[in-house]
């Protein structure tokens, strides 16, 4: 078993037994469910929206070279820079170089999951640059030295008391149970950062080929300030975020908002295509787009899982997932939690170390049902499992166990015999008072669950007794 897998099991067991954590997650997801239910009624046909979004992303992903080149050309025409990064190392290096050349001491960041994926903040901090997360949820988890808990709601796992205590300890603010006051504290604190930072780093929800613009979606306005005030703007994004046309946003923006939070449309949908132009009042002097591959082109080459690149990172599959609802976002130990992460991370980080994520699912398909771009998530989880088995990286004990299971199940007398043996053994454990002790073979199962009474005979025997026939 890999270390990542052991850590996952430990954290998952701990979190699913933590009633406070369960309460907070349940409250958040209930609010989300209500809001999304209402949000969908604003569409004449939600299914048609999903189909359109699928069509747009399918078109883009299956012509990725064409649209990326179109985007790049437009950005360059407008004086911007486009850098293609093979992996996290190259992206970090480029951004650190831009920071060094620009004499950057402080960076304000609006939310970017790719920056988490490539551990950008740590690289900048190592060269002495202060990095300030400006999304409120991100700001909170940064103060706690934690990664985001959820890709849309980074501080979902915390209540107001915890945030108040944190602001008191880290910012010296007076304790308050009043959420608007907590927001005001963060606003005042972050305002200073926006105006003292030399560089703003944003992600991109979409990059628009025909306009040569990146678009970011935020409710708070931190994304707007991060890209308006500092001297340099760097937009960091995965290559799969490209869409063909501006017109596509007429569907993508409201669908992303509704799937993400239940809103009809997010408060600020911003398009940026370059540095400040001649005649414009303000804006950055430099505009850089960093296009990150980091395993995405390999996923593109896999026809079976190519559509995973359609993902618009709305978080709907995460919220719908019964596994997430029980273990929360941090137990996964990876950048992208929930079903999309359990498909993506084993591909990006390696099946050998991370296949357990694809196995940690009931395959109920709730994720597939809610995905606004029709990604068949639970099928991809199953494919990862198959690929893991074929790669021979799963534990030998499990291989042996499955071999034995197949041998037992492929003969009726063997099945009957082992069924009898199992019932006898369980009754013996109970009779000897070993239940719940280390000697109880059922302990891994029964430590969190009540064992039902063990029947004296099998179903077949009961049937024969009642009906006198097989």
């Amino acid at each position, binding site marked *: 078993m890999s270390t990542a897998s052991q850590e996952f099991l430990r954290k998952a067991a701990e979190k699913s037994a933590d009633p406070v954590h369960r309460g*907070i997650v349940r*409250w958040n997801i209930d609010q*989300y469910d209500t809001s999304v239910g209402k949000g969908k009624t604003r569409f*004449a*046909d939600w299914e*048609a*929206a*999903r*189909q*359109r979004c699928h069509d747009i992303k*399918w078109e883009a*992903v*299956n*012509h*990725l*070279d064409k649209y*990326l*080149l179109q985007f790049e050309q437009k950005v360059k025409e*407008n004086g911007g820079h486009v850098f*293609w990064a093979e992996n996290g190392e190259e992206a970090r290096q480029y951004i650190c170089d831009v920071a060094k050349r620009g004499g950057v001491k402080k960076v304000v960041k609006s939310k970017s999951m790719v920056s988490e994926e490539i551990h950008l903040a740590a690289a900048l901090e190592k060269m002495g640059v202060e990095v300030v997360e400006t999304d*409120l*949820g991100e700001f*909170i988890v940064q103060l706690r030295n934690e990664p985001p808990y959820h890709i849309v*709601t*980074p501080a979902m796992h915390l209540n*107001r008391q915890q945030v108040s205590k944190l602001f008191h300890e880290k910012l010296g603010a007076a304790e308050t149970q009043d959420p608007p006051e*907590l927001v005001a504290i963060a*606003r005042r604190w972050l305002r200073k950062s926006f*105006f003292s930072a030399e560089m703003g780093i944003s992600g991109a929800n979409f990059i628009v080929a025909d306009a040569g*613009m990146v678009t970011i979606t935020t*409710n*708070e*306005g*931190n994304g*707007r300030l991060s*890209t*308006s005030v500092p001297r340099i703007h760097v937009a960091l994004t995965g290559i799969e975020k490209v869409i063909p046309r501006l017109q596509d*946003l*007429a569907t993508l*923006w*409201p669908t992303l908002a509704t799937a993400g*939070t239940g809103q009809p*449309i997010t*408060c*600020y*949908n*911003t*398009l940026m*295509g*370059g540095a400040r132009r001649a005649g*414009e*009042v*303000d*804006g950055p002097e430099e505009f850089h787009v960093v296009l990150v591959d980091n395993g995405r*082109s390999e996923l*593109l080459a896999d*026809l079976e899982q*190519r*559509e995973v690149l359609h993902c618009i990172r709305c978080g709907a599959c995460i919220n719908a997932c019964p596994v997430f609802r029980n273990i929360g976002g941090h137990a996964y130990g990876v950048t992208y939690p929930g079903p999309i992460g359990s498909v993506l991370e084993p591909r990006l980080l390696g099946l050998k170390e991370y296949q357990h994520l694809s196995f940690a699912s009931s395959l109920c398909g709730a994720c597939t049902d809610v995905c606004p771009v*029709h990604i068949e998530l639970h099928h991809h989880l199953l494919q990862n499992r198959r690929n893991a088995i074929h790669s021979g990286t799963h534990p030998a004990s499990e291989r042996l166990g499955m071999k034995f299971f197949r041998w037992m199940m492929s003969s009726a007398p063997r099945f009957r015999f082992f069924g009898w043996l199992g019932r006898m053994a369980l009754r013996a454990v109970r009779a000897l008072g070993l239940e719940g002790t280390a000697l109880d073979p059922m302990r891994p199962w029964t430590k969190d669950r009540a064992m039902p009474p063990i029947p004296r005979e099998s179903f077949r025997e009961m049937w024969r007794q009642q009906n006198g026939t097989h």
Partner: protein
Amino acid sequence: MAPTENPSRERILGRIRAAVQTTGPHHEGAAGQIFAPVTNTLDRFQKECVANITECMVTADSASSAAAIKAILATLPPGEIFVQDAPELRALVSGVKDGRPLRWSSEGPPNEASQATITLCEALVAQTGSVLVSAANGGRQATVIAPAHIVFATLDQLVPDLEAVMARINERGIAGRNSYVCLITGSSRTADIEKILIMGAHGPRRLIVVLQTA
């Protein structure tokens, strides 16, 4: 700035080109109408503003627009007002002088301590009660920095839905002409703490549209 060596570009593109030789599976499904058509645009815009917490004031002429802006300013704490330097706003604001310091966008970006900003917009969207602004509307900070953002618009700027506003961006070259375009829907908000909706996270707490019908 010296161009950065980027050998990875060709490698990434090479892999992409090889991969997309074969087309991936496509999901076939419903292709119906996504949103019901918007018919009564002014009525719908006003309703959406109520829902997304935008204050919409419909005015009949420039005199009543000036009066509306004056009334709004009277509700704000003392302090500087920033105004997009446009002939329409020069005319309007000259009628509402209330002794506050004024800063025009031609003098540079707004001061951080501005109490309000007044700008024009590129379009209004009835379907969502949104305001489309660009860098031309006083710059990037003009529409996000102050506690109150006042937008002056006229009825011909109101389009029915998101499809129409994207079409307008294309037809009028708004994205081509500006380095920055933003579709604003309601005032700044966050629900990052316990999913409780709080207004005025980093941007304006109040968004006010003065919509002049003639």
